[in-house]
């Protein structure tokens, strides 16, 4: 990598799509944990085991990250607060799921909120990440994926 802004490649897109699969597994297992405890315990337990796992992964990969860390810009303090936002998400989600919205409504509106934020984030380059003007293709892909997701979410849980 010679440039500071690498061009998007197929592998990045596949990684993002595959990451969605990880999310499904994560939600499944965390839901399992929640059934034995509650939503707060599930999130707390997952964050705890996640912290330990992250330390183990870092220890395993320790030798591999020695190069060019000195050249990087230091992170602002707020960049460390992603976990707060994540923890708040868990509580808000469990609130919404137990309202008349139920799971389907919560998921659908959550996707909407996520997409609106990401549009603003790209448009203005929020929180120090590169600014990217969404193209027509971006918006077409967005419309297709949101429509497909809405169909799946809103019809899940009913016999055909």
């Amino acid at each position: 990598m010679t440039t500071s802004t690498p061009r998007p490649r197929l592998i990045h897109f596949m990684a993002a799509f595959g990451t969605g699969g990880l999310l499904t597994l994560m939600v499944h297992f965390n839901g399992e944990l929640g059934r034995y405890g509650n939503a707060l315990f599930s999130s707390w337990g997952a964050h705890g085991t996640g912290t330990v796992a992250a330390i183990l992964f870092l220890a395993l990969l320790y030798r591999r990250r020695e190069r060019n860390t000195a050249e990087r810009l230091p992170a602002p303090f707020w960049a460390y607060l992603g976990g707060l936002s994540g923890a708040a998400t868990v509580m808000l989600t469990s609130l919404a799921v137990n309202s008349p919205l139920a799971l389907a409504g919560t998921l659908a509106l959550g996707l909407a909120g996520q997409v609106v934020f990401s549009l603003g984030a790209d448009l203005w380059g929020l929180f120090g990440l590169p600014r990217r003007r969404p193209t027509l293709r971006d918006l077409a892909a967005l419309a297709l994926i949101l429509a497909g997701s809405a169909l799946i979410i809103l019809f899940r849980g009913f016999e055909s």
Partner: protein
Amino acid sequence: MTMPILVACLAGLLVGLSRQLNGRLAVSTSPLISSFWNHAVGFAALTVLGLVVGGLIPPGAENAPWHAYVGGPIGVVFVAAGSWVIARIGAVNTAILVIGGQMVSGVLLDLVLAAPTTLWATGLGVILILAGVVVTQTQAKR
């Protein structure tokens, strides 16, 4: 009813915010270090909350099987991958591809678990999502 709607939208907004912050931290450190801080800070916040509100470890929690805790380590990889990808393909592409991947794999999991589904809606949904993924791919090659 407006209150739950706002809460659900805000939850989605915070998912995006979290990924943006973790992505920024990964630029200065590494995706895995960013994922570590995400989990450590979240764990600390939830511990404080649990101690204040009470019921951090509810009765019955000790009966959870070991595999119920696998979600944590999976989450580490999830956050690290998201932090790596977002600086490279942008927030919109990251969000919609993760959503698409979650939906399609969710349908597969439902099939494995034999959960009830509406076949035409689910099938059409998967086709639309895959079409959307193909659209992002054609853009990547430009």
